[in-house]
């Protein structure tokens, strides 16, 4: 115990003396949490619209003003022909072309039907999909208005209509920040927990200090605990800091209890620390450790369900997310913060991550050798 105490004392001294680590621990979470959620915005706004109006009727004008009034579309230009409008798309001045044919109004009134043509620049798939969906719903709405105008009262509507009203549970305002901030916080905790720990151990290898430690009676478990405990505490600290930022900058107050979050985080940190330890046993320079960490971070984020939903991934990728501890923590954070889940609800998550922690730490301890 006494040895462990001194190892920890030494470790904390080194951490607090390293300005780079301090910056990573204190400043990075603040900045990332304050800036990233603003940039990682799912809503698509300012879709640039080119209109080709062959009709020049009051209905076509009404339609266009309805579209531009929605706030999602920015009218780029009126064009004389589809060809001209396409050129606007090619120059990237427009994302979407709406062509209104001749006799649009006339057909609508006389024949009860008319056509519209929409062309979309699909280079950015998300923007194209959302843009066409918005536009279609606006046109549908317009359609309803027109119909109302021409239906003769007191005639009953000849067609039955299904009305859909949705109620957004857990995030009624559909505020994507409630969804992103907890996720980004998980990534930050992972970063501190696993990568700082592995870099720290590899640094001892690189500088050669581990050699000096290895000839001393310091036991393997003492050395490993001496490395894990500081970064475990730092990880929990970053989590606290991040929850504070979420509360004061975004007004996100977890619906569930903080206790649940901390219990899960404590176990989760064990798993990522085990991973960091494992990386460090296979690397002999900090450069190697950084490159491996970078690679794994990408995998963690992309297969963690932070930006894209896991349910829409191909099946093999869904299997990979099952061994990604980060995906569990992101899920748990969202469950607890938004839905107010308790320990009983996240029991499976907790046990799985605990299993991953035991596995990774066990593997790391077995492959860590004091002598070669």
């Amino acid at each position, binding site marked *: 115990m006494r040895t462990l105490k001194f*190892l920890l004392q030494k470790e904390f001294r080194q951490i607090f003396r390293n300005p780079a680590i301090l910056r990573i621990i204190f400043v990075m979470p603040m900045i990332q949490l304050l800036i990233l959620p603003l940039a990682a915005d799912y809503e698509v706004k300012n879709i640039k619209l080119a209109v080709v109006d062959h009709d020049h009727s009051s209905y076509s004008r009404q339609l266009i003003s309805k579209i531009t009034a929605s706030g999602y579309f920015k009218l780029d230009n009126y064009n004389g022909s589809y060809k001209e409008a396409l050129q606007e798309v090619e120059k990237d001045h427009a994302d979407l072309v709406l062509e209104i044919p001749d006799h649009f109004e006339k057909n609508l009134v006389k024949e009860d039907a008319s056509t519209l043509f929409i062309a979309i620049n699909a280079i950015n798939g998300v923007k194209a999909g959302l843009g066409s969906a918005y536009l279609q719903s606006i046109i549908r709405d317009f359609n309803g208005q027109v119909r109302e105008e021409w239906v003769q009262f007191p005639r009953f509507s000849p067609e039955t209509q299904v009305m859909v009203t949705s109620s957004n549970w857990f995030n009624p305002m559909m505020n994507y920040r409630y969804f992103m901030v907890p996720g980004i916080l998980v990534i930050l905790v992972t970063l501190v927990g696993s990568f700082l720990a592995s870099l720290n151990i590899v640094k001892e290898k690189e500088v050669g200090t581990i050699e000096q430690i290895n000839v001393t009676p310091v036991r393997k478990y003492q050395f490993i605990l001496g490395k894990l405990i500081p970064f475990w505490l730092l990880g929990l600290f970053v989590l606290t800091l991040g929850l504070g930022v979420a509360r004061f900058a975004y007004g996100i107050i977890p619906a569930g209890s903080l206790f649940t979050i901390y219990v899960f985080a404590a176990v989760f940190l064990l798993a990522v620390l085990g991973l960091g330890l494992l990386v460090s046993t296979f690397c002999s320079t900090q450069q190697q450790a950084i490159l491996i960490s970078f690679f794994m971070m990408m995998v963690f984020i992309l297969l963690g369900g932070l930006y894209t939903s896991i349910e829409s991934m191909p099946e093999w990728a869904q299997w990979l997310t099952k061994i990604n501890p980060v995906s569990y923590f992101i899920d748990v954070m969202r469950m607890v913060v938004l839905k107010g889940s308790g320990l009983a609800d996240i029991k499976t998550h907790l046990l799985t991550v605990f299993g991953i922690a035991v596995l990774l730490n066990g593997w790391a301890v077995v492959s860590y050798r004091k002598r070669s």
Partner: protein
Amino acid sequence: MGAVTVDNIVKFYGKKEARVTALQGLSFDVQKGELFGLIGPDGAGKTSLFRILTTLLLADAGTASVDGFDVVKDYKAIRNRVGYMPGRFSLYQDLSVRENLEFFATIFNTTIEENYELVKDIYSQIEPFRDRKAGKLSGGMKQKLALSCALIHRPSVLFLDEPTTGVDAVSRKEFWEMLAHLKQQGITILVSTPYMDEAARCDRVALMQEGKIMSVNTPAGIVNEFGRPLLAVKNTNMLQLLQAMKSCEGVEDAYPFGEYHHVVLKPGGEAAVKTILEQMKMPYEQHPVTPDVEDCFMALMRNKDGQ
């Protein structure tokens, strides 16, 4: 039972195809309280041997013991009673002098005060800088700190891997004086060095080359083994002189040695050397010298190559 015994130690590096033999069956003993030097050029296997003896590396064959404990079975006991100073400075550069020393004292379950007597002479020289970060010390001071840290738990055997490499001449001299002082306290010291001139300061030395020990003896004993007359010669065209000496009938070996060339004579070769020096028609100088360890090393290497 000696303080250190090495019996037929073999160490390979690399996989089967590209296997390099670093140590080819070494054997020697070091007595308690001895200052023992391992002398050899870079790549002779000195560091590998030290790493085996300090339980950091497993030998592929052979046995070794330190202070009566086997390096494989009783490695825990050995780690408690040896001090190791690696060739590369490997203390915590971001901790201060005092913190480094304190750290190494505590992980050996002791305190600086308890063994202060032992390190006093060395540590007192760096004590004025005790709050300075170890990384900011000069080379000589780093080395004194490293030695203090290796000694703070009063080891019975001290391993110093090339402690004087890259250190200035004055600090080297000081360092050897410190070792002589430590020896008086009864600590067995194994020190490796590529510098032949340092051999004379050891009680006994082992000359190493390519993973083999060529000779183990006292410095005087090694010099006595030389057993042939040695001349130092010099004239104005040293390159030509060396070639002439090498091709001379009465000469066994000739090599540059400082400002002179050293010429190992065959019995009665003196006259032939003299003739050549005269023939070159240049002012020259020649006088017999007593061989030192470097001469012996050259001779041993030559014998080995000749076999």
